[in-house]
């Protein structure tokens, strides 16, 4: 691999590289010192474990917490390897590194740079740890009603279960859905009122009114009045693991603001020594939640500044990385198709694909029969009709129309639907005129998109139910002596 010719101008910008690395180190959470980067270039072993840990932080899908910090280095290393593999990282040397942190810092540095080059990693990490000041609502449907990970171990069914129990569970589910609808309507009404009553208050003209979290801060700046005990404890468990951003904040509505704040300092590296007691006013800390919030905001602003500095001095860093790459030995070409490991995307696994494959196979069968039948019938008919020129012209026209229609159908799924709705939470803002900047979303448009999604899904559901009806009718209808009375129509 050819070494890149060192740009003579780079010498003049010699100071820029340390700056760039320093900015990078400041913008990473609990970032390694710039020394680590330099040592890694020379593949020094002492830089290895810091880089493993950094990669782990970067690749972990959930915001960091104390739980993550306590994972052993070997486990972290293994998870990093599989995550990189699943992202399609091309270098094999990384997969072969020992997991005890004894060597490989240069490879790890390359991996980090690869991640940084592919996407806005730093910004995403910052967004992950943002404390939302507004009333947030997600636009996409991720996690809207997703299950909470592995099923709780309270499964009563260890043995055969009566099918009527299933009916009962289903009824329960229907009830819960109804309950959700009414609760949510109420919450929207209250939220809208709060926004309405506090309009004109906010210092930021763009926003115009307070959010619930801000109003709550004014009402209760010391956080002395928390939500009742049980609620508080639960909020801590649920609110944070649900992530702020990366894993799409569920739905809308403010979490109890102050309880979240007790958690935030755990993310602040280093300077927040005192473990805050989330349960109540901590005896050791005399700082009010407002002060905590201000510190968090300040901390975030510092990191934002670091990221901005990094962005400005990026090109120098990439040149340097090219030289680092140059010092590595070229790898032997890998086997053409390496299997992709997907340990961190367990849900996308075979389960879903299986269902789709089966559906398509049934469809294929059905089509094969139908097409055969119709083709035979058609040929018989066509033979009788003659073969004039209008005949073939008409056939050609039909063929073209059909091709066009099918092409349009194919484009429906091949292209991503228009401007893909962005993941991540958006701050709700009420404006009487509904005016919105070009980067903002309008509720009316979202409603349109959702309505079409709803119609689509309803069609699918109806069709599935119809299919079941036919099948069951086939299985049961032939029996004498029984009359099947369908339930009264909807």
């Amino acid at each position, binding site marked *: 691999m050819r070494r890149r010719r060192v740009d003579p101008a780079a010498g003049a910008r010699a100071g820029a590289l340390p700056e760039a690395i320093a900015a990078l180190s400041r913008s990473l959470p609990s970032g390694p010192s710039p020394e680590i980067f330099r040592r890694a270039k020379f593949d020094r072993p002492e830089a290895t474990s810091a880089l493993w840990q950094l990669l782990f932080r970067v690749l972990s899908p959930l915001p960091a917490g104390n739980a993550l910090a306590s994972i052993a280095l070997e486990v972290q290393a293994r998870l990093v390897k599989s995550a990189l593999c699943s992202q399609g990282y091309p270098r094999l040397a990384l997969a072969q590194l020992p997991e005890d942190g004894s060597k490989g810092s240069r490879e790890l540095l390359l991996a980090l740079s690869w991640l940084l080059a592919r996407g806005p990693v730093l910004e995403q990490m910052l967004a992950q740890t943002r404390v939302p000041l507004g009333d947030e609502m997600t636009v996409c449907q991720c996690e809207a009603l997703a299950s909470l990970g592995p099923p709780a171990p309270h499964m009563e069914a260890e043995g055969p279960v009566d099918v009527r129990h299933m009916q009962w569970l289903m009824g329960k589910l229907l009830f819960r859905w109804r309950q959700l609808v009414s609760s949510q309507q109420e919450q929207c009404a209250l939220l809208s009122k709060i926004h309405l009553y506090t309009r004109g208050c906010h210092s930021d003209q763009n926003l115009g009114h307070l959010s619930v979290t801000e109003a*709550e801060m004014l009402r209760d700046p010391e956080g002395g009045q928390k939500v009742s005990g049980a609620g508080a404890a639960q909020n801590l468990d649920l609110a944070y693991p649900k992530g702020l951003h990366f894993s799409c904040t569920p739905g809308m509505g403010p979490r109890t603001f102050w309880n979240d704040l007790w958690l935030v300092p755990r993310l602040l590296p280093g300077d927040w020594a005192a473990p805050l007691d989330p349960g109540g006013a901590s005896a050791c800390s005399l700082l009010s939640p407002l002060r905590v919030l201000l510190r968090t*905001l300040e901390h975030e602003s510092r990191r934002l500044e670091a990221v901005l500095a990094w962005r400005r001095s990026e090109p120098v860093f990439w040149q340097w990385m090219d030289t680092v*790459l140059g010092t590595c030995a070229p790898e032997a070409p890998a086997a053409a198709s390496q299997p992709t490991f997907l340990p961190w995307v367990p849900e996308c696994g075979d389960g879903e694909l299986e269902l789709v494959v089966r559906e398509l196979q049934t469809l294929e069968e059905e089509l094969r029969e139908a097409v055969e039948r119709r083709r035979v019938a058609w040929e018989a008919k*066509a033979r009788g009709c003659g073969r004039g020129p209008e005949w073939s012209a008409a056939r050609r026209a039909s063929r073209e129309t059909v091709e066009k229609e099918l092409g349009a159908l194919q484009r429906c799924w091949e292209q991503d639907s228009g401007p893909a709705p962005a993941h991540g939470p958006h701050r709700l803002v009420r404006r009487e005129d509904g005016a919105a900047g070009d980067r903002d*979303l309008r509720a009316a448009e979202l409603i349109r998109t959702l309505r079409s999604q709803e119609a689509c899904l309803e069609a699918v559901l109806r069709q599935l139910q119809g299919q079941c009806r036919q099948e069951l009718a086939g299985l049961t209808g032939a029996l004498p002596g029984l009359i099947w009375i369908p339930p*009264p129509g909807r």
Partner: protein
Amino acid sequence: MLPADCSRRLVAELQGALDACAHRQLQLEQSLRVCRRLLQAWEPTGTWACEPPPEPETNEEDPLPACTPSPQDLKELEFLTQALEKAVRVRRGITKAGERNKAPSLKSRSIVTSPGTTASTRPQSPGQAGGHASDRRPTKGLRQTTVPAKGRPERRLPSVRDRTRAGIGARAPRPGAGLRNQHMAPSAAPQAPEAFTLKEKGHLLRLPAAFRKAASQNSSLWAQLSSMQTSDSMDAAAAKTQFLRNIQTASGGSQPRLSAAEVEAEARRLRKACSLLRLRVREELSAAPMDWMQEYRCLLTLEGLQTMVGQCLQRLQELRAAVVERPPLPCPVGRPPRASPSCGGGAEPTWSPQLLVYSSTQELQTLAALKLRVAVLDQQIHLQKVLMAELLPLVSAAQPEGPSWLTLCRAAHSLLCEGGARVLTILRDEPVD
């Protein structure tokens, strides 16, 4: 009775759905509690009512353990002094307006609280725009008006006032994290405390100055960062692409491997393809052609659909072959979220703050209701597929004798065809011998 493994799977699925709903319900209820409390009259914080107004020295007598470093004390003192300064200013203003004497005393009590101060003082309810106090009509009370009703000791106030005058040192006033001064309604009879409600006085609220500053700095930095992204410098972008290419070639692979995200996106596309194809096939099969032209077109469409289904299947098989599932590592970090099938696309999570603008309560409610409806439909369709996969084979395999079979049929019909909402009736109609 259903066989054990089938039961286990079905119960697990249904229970999972129930848990997800319960979790969401809990979140909603918590949020409802907060909102309701905000819309009611704001009460004074419990501890506040019993707290004597702090004097600068009380910091040491603080009931809380004195583990504060003394620089902390100084900071709090500064806040306090500042707040007291404000008190003097406001009081002078009020006295000029010729208010009653009650006001100053109450005010001084109210002012000492600024959120930055230690826990010994509890700040009060949101301040009104302090600066314009004299302009506003003597406002109804904030919760301070209730305070006199609680019979606060008045004797300490003169001393505080004195200290105020004395203690105004040469410290440069820092824009404190202070709430604005509350204004006491001098005329508003303390006897008839008017509570603060968001409805009447919400528009008078002001955020604390320090918070405003921090928040605006924060949002401007975010704005800078997003604008920087859109106008990404050519150098940086070119350098990055070059580096990525270099890494690719250095590793010997010419084609970048598929990442998990890409596989998922492809799978999502194929799922969508499947449902669209299925719908279309149904349409065509159920349409009754009028003439030979329509019949021909129908035939061609079906043949075309057949090819497309075949292509999709092939692609799916390729994907499956490319995915080798290792035994899943015990993943302590938990799972990343499962993207729901109707989630638009593999869009990168946006990191820049964006607004969602709505114009009326109705609109917000519609939006939220539709979101929920789509999520519920997703869940329902998933359950439908699972139930179909489990129950239909059972029904077809079971012996059509005995009441248990009828129960099964009835239940299957209800679950599969009516979404569990309605049940059909089976009437036994033995022929008369």
